[in-house]
């Protein structure tokens, strides 16, 4: 009897360790503190939710998923060190970071290690360097800014535009594309204002906008700064319509800016308010688990994990080297993989094509005004 018990215990132990050994390992490096804490925390929670769901249904190809999270402190230097450390542990796929500047300095490390990196950065240049291992979870600026410029010109009918941007890789990238596009369409940029990341006082910048008296203001800052400038715009009584991207009208910005966010509009690649049933279900599950409604970064983290699942199941094997090749040119349909939420196609450069939304903040809520279809 005693020996049977011992054998049973040994068997259980052996099974447990072998399952452990077979787990598919993800490494996540995200902005868990510092200026990008909102971005990173949502991203991390999205990843955790997706992994929990997939593991509850038996994992991928019968293997459980495991993730380790590391904090980049919203600092590219720290991100680089953390990514190097993560890559040394030979993960199946690298997730993150969310900030373009951090992605820019870490992408060469992942490429050198031959490990696919699925990230949240949106700067245009990231996917233009010929890196074969880098994948987006949201639109790059080269896909979204032309849509924004077109909306400012055609729908807002703005002949003069003030452009406010944050002086980092993300902000500069967006600014360069939109200024070129506005110029091409014939809307004049009457104020071109760079601001600093982490800037607290926007009185002078808003003063300049007021002096330029534009028909519309394009605001392209990180979340917290967006909230501060929205308050200052309201404080100084700027009435020109405000247009931005996801970072102007995200949930966190609405929470921080309060009333001042009302009326702001933005082009959004991903929003939890999208009129899509699968996204509504995601939003409910997320809110139930974490007690708050995620922003688009929560969606990005969630999608990143399901991208891995879909591509791995398509390959039929867990092969870190072949993974990137499989994802290039792949179309994942939400009908086949509900976790991907909307049909998506990955280009050879790692960019994505997906439907997107035009959103306005009405009484503290994101309201989708238009659905912009997938390009191809």
């Amino acid at each position, binding site marked *: 009897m005693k020996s049977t018990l011992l054998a049973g215990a040994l068997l259980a132990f052996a099974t447990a360790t072998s399952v452990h050994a077979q787990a598919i390992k993800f490494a996540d490096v995200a902005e868990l503190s*510092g200026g990008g804490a909102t971005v990173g925390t949502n991203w991390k929670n999205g990843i955790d939710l997706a992994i929990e769901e997939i593991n509850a249904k038996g994992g991928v190809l019968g293997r459980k998923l495991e993730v380790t999270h590391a904090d980049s402190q919203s600092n590219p230097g720290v991100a680089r060190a953390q990514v190097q450390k993560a890559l040394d542990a030979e993960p199946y796929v690298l997730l993150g970071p969310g900030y373009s500047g951090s992605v820019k300095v870490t992408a060469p490390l992942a490429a050198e290690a031959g490990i696919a990196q699925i990230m949240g950065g949106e700067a245009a240049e990231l996917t233009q360097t010929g890196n074969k291992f880098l994948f987006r979870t949201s639109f790059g600026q080269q896909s979204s800014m032309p849509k924004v410029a077109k909306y400012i010109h055609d729908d807002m009918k703005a002949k003069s535009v003030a452009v406010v941007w944050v002086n980092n890789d993300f902000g500069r990238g967006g600014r360069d594309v939109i200024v070129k596009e506005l110029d091409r369409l014939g809307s004049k940029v009457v104020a071109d204002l760079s601001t*600093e990341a982490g800037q607290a006082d926007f*009185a*002078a910048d808003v003063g300049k906008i007021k002096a330029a008296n534009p028909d519309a203001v394009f605001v392209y800052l990180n979340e917290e700064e967006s909230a501060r400038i929205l308050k*200052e715009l309201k*404080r100084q009584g700027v009435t020109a319509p405000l247009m931005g991207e996801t970072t102007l009208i995200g949930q966190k910005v609405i929470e921080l800016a309060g009333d001042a966010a009302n009326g702001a509009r933005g082009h959004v690649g991903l929003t939890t308010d999208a009129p899509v049933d699968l996204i509504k279900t995601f939003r409910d599950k997320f809110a139930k688990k974490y007690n708050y409604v995620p922003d688009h970064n929560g969606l990005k983290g969630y999608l990143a994990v399901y991208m891995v699942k879909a591509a791995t199941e398509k390959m039929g094997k867990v092969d870190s080297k072949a993974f990137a090749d499989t994802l290039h040119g792949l179309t994942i349909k939400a009908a086949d993989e509900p976790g991907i939420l909307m049909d998506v196609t990955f280009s050879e450069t790692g960019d994505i094509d997906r439907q997107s939304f035009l959103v306005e903040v009405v009484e503290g809520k994101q309201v989708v005004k238009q659905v912009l279809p997938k390009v191809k």
Partner: protein
Amino acid sequence: MSNLFDLLVAGLATGAIYALVAVGFTLLWQTSQTINFAQGEFVMLPAFLMLAAMHAGAPFWLAIILGILLSMILLGLAFKLLLVDPMMRHGVLPLAIATMALAIGIKEAVKQFFSAEASPFPSIVPTGDISILGHAVSLQSIGVLVLAIFAVLGLTTLLNRTSLGHQMQAAAQNPTVARIIGVPVERMILLTFLINAFLVALASLLITPIYLAKFSSGEVLGQAAFIAAIVGGFNQVRGAIAGGLLIGVLDNLAASYVSTQYRAAVPLIFLILVILFRPQGLLGRAEERTV
């Protein structure tokens, strides 16, 4: 021109808050030779104390009172008894370094117990505009300016017009003689710590609706107030007030007329000029110390 007017008002409003914080710097320096490098974090913390009170269900007005009282206990009484008094014996420099450590401690504690993310904070001044000389000026700027001016006026009245204030000044100027003529010097020093705690709590209440409640928001404020105190004169309350207002306006004008990228550098350049050509500060008096 209207732009200049707006910039001046906004700059004065921010400057008034710098002034409140800078006054605290000079008070602590005068009475106890404490250079408090955690002053910025002292401004950040009360907002979180108020937020915590509100999360516990207190209405905003009660949270303000609780926040100010708690600040006076933690940042006034406890700061003096637990950090300044034991470190003071070792001299000015070890104490200054201890306050730097305290700054890091406060930041990390807020990050740990609250959140690394920014939180919104209600404003005690209603939003909206009023018209002054044909310019629309935001009520928030005016409210901040008025409240800060009242606080500073109240403080200068206390210092210059009351017996208590005279005793405090005596304790600051020459503790030995003050002791001989019967001034309770220790109590006066404690009082300046409590006043400093009150001022930073007030500054916190005024600035946080604009800057948002965030663990790192003290860094900018502490630096600006420190520069303001040196520029104005580290040993004069009125110097700190002038320095605060000047730095606030200078920062806004620099951002508008020089460049946003270099806005942070302009007050620093100004600081260097002051140190080179008028080391006692614009309104400070030259000071000699026996060693």
